[in-house]
C-alpha cells in the first residue's frame, strides 16, 4: 500500500502537527519508505496468536485511597508558558 498526500494531511491534523505542502511531500516519501518495511508483517499468518501488549503479564496494582503527594502546584506551574491565579492560560475557546 502507499499513503496519499491527503492522508498525510489527515494524520498530521489528527496528531495536531502543522505540515506545509512542501513538508507534506517529503513526509509522504519517507512514510511510504517506512511502510514498505512495515508491510513485511502482512505476509505472516497470525491467526489464533494472542496479541502481546506488554513485556510482563501484570495486573494493575491497587493502593489505599489516601493522599500521598504534597501540593506542589507552584513548582509545577513555574515551568508553564502562561499562568494566572493558578490556572493555565490558553486562547479563548468559547465565544
Amino acid at each position: 500500500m502507499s499513503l496519499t498526500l491527503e492522508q498525510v494531511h489527515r494524520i498530521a491534523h489528527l496528531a495536531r502537527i502543522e505540515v506545509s505542502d512542501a513538508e507534506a511531500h517529503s513526509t509522504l516519501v519517507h512514510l511510504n519508505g517506512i511502510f514498505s518495511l512495515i508491510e513485511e508483517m502482512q505476509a505472516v499468518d497470525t491467526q489464533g496468536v494472542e496479541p502481546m501488549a506488554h513485556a510482563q503479564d501484570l495486573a494493575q496494582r491497587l493502593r489505599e485511597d489516601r493522599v500521598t503527594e504534597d501540593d506542589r502546584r507552584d513548582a509545577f506551574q513555574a515551568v508553564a508558558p502562561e499562568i494566572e491565579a493558578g490556572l493555565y492560560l490558553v486562547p479563548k475557546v468559547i465565544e
Partner: protein
Amino acid sequence: MMEHSLKALAQALAAKEMSSVELTQHYLDRIAHHNPQINAYITIDAERSLAQARAADERLAAGTGGPLTGIPLAQKDIFCAKGWLTTCGSKMLGNFVSPYDATVIERFNAAGAVNLGKTNMDEFAMGSSNETSFFGAVKNPWDTDRVPGGSSGGSAAAVAARLAPAATGTDTGGSIRQPAALCNLSGLKPTYGVVSRYGMIAFASSLDQAGPMGRSAEDCALLLNTMAGFDQRDSTSLDRPAEDYARELNADAGAKPLAGLKIGLPQEFFGEGCAADVMQRVEAAIGEYRKLGAETVDISLPNMKLSVPAYYVIAPAEASSNLSRFDGVRYGYRAEEYSDLNDMYSKSRAQGFGAEVKRRILIGAYVLSHGYYDAYYLQAQRIRRLIANDFVAAFERCDVILGPTSPSTAFKIGEKAADPVQMYLSDIYTIAVNLAGLPGMSIPCGLASGLPTGLQLIGNYFAEANLLNVAHRYQQATDWHLQLATGFD
C-alpha cells in the same frame, strides 16, 4: 585516575587519596577542555555538581558512604533532575527545568553519587546515531567523523572520552547496547520492569528501560545495584526482592570459570547482513568463550526478521500517545504566534519537534486510526508474541544467547541521516530483546580497522547477575574493554 574502575575510585575516596570535590573538578576540567570536540553533554552545572561532591565528602569523612558515594556520573538528559535543565534532546523541552527527580536520579542522589551533567541524545530517544538531537550531533571519540550510535550517544561518547567514569542510558530498541558497541563500552539493558521509569521521559512505555553504561561489566553491576528496585510510582515496576548484581563476579572460578554454561548461537545472527569485520570479532569471542569452558548450541529465532517491522508499528503508536502531552500548555515550548487553541497546538508541535519525532508521531497516529488498527497495531502485537515465544523456546536449550550487537562499526555522520529505513535497520540485532522484555548487554570484542565492535549477550528474564558474570569472565581473559580512544589525554 581516568583509567580507574568505579571500585578503585571508591577505594581511593575511602582511603582519602583524593576527595570527591577533587575528582569531580578533575572531570569538569576535562569536560571544559574536550567536550567541544564531541558535544557529549548538553548541560553542565559545576556549582550543583560540586555541592553534591562536598556533601559526599562529608559522608565519606563520617564513614557513612556507600560504593558510589562521591563518584561523578553522567546522566542521560531523558532523566528529570530537580533544578537541572532536562531537554530530552528536543527544542520542545529546551527551557524545561525539572521541578522533580526521576526515581533513578533520586536513587543515585541517595547513594551519594555526583551528577556530573546531562548528556546529549537523539531527540526523545528516537534515533540510532545521535544526529536527531536539537543540540547537535555527538561525535564518536574513536573517529570524530563518525556517529557514536544512539540514542544514548552522549553518554557513550562521554565515557569513551573519559569525560565521566560511567553513565546512565535508556534502551527502547537498542539505545544502550548499540552506542556501547560503537564506543567500546559495556552497557546493560535490564529486564523490563527492573528499573523504575518514573521521571524518565517516555518514548514507548512497554519497551523503555534504563540501564548502566560503563567501562566494564563490573562497573555496570555496581550502577545497577543502585538503579534497580521496586517503585510504587511506576505502575510497571516489578516488586521483587533486592539482589546484588555483582554477587557472581568475585567467586573463585579457576581456569574454566564458565564450565557448564550453554551459549546459544541463533542462525539469524550469523547470516548475511553483518559486516565481515564485525563477524570476525564475534567469532573470535566465541572461541574465547569455549576456552573459558562454555559450550555452544545452534539455535533459531525464526521470527527475528519481523522485529524491525513490528517495532516500527508498536514504538511509534506508543510514542504518538505519550508525546501528545507536549501541547504548549503546561510546560515546554509554545509557538509565539497562533490564531486559536488548535493553531497553538499545531504550531507549537510543528516548531518544537524535529523531523524524526514528527515522522514517528505520524506513523503512530496512522496505525492507531480507525480502519488500520487491526491490520497494523494488532498484527504487530501478535508478531511480538511470536518473537517472545521464540526466545522462550531458545532458553530451553541454552543459558545465554550470543551474537553481534550492531551489523557494522560506527558509520559516518550524515551517511544514513537522509534514509530513515537504513537507520532503522542498524538496530536489527537489538530490537527483538526489547519486544520480549529480556535483559541484554553489549561488551567490547575487539577493534576492526581501529573502530570498536560489540558482542551482544542476551539472558533470560531476571538473569542480569548471570549475564554480568558471563561478560565479566570474558573481560578477565581479554583486554578489549580496556582499549581507549586516543586524543583525549
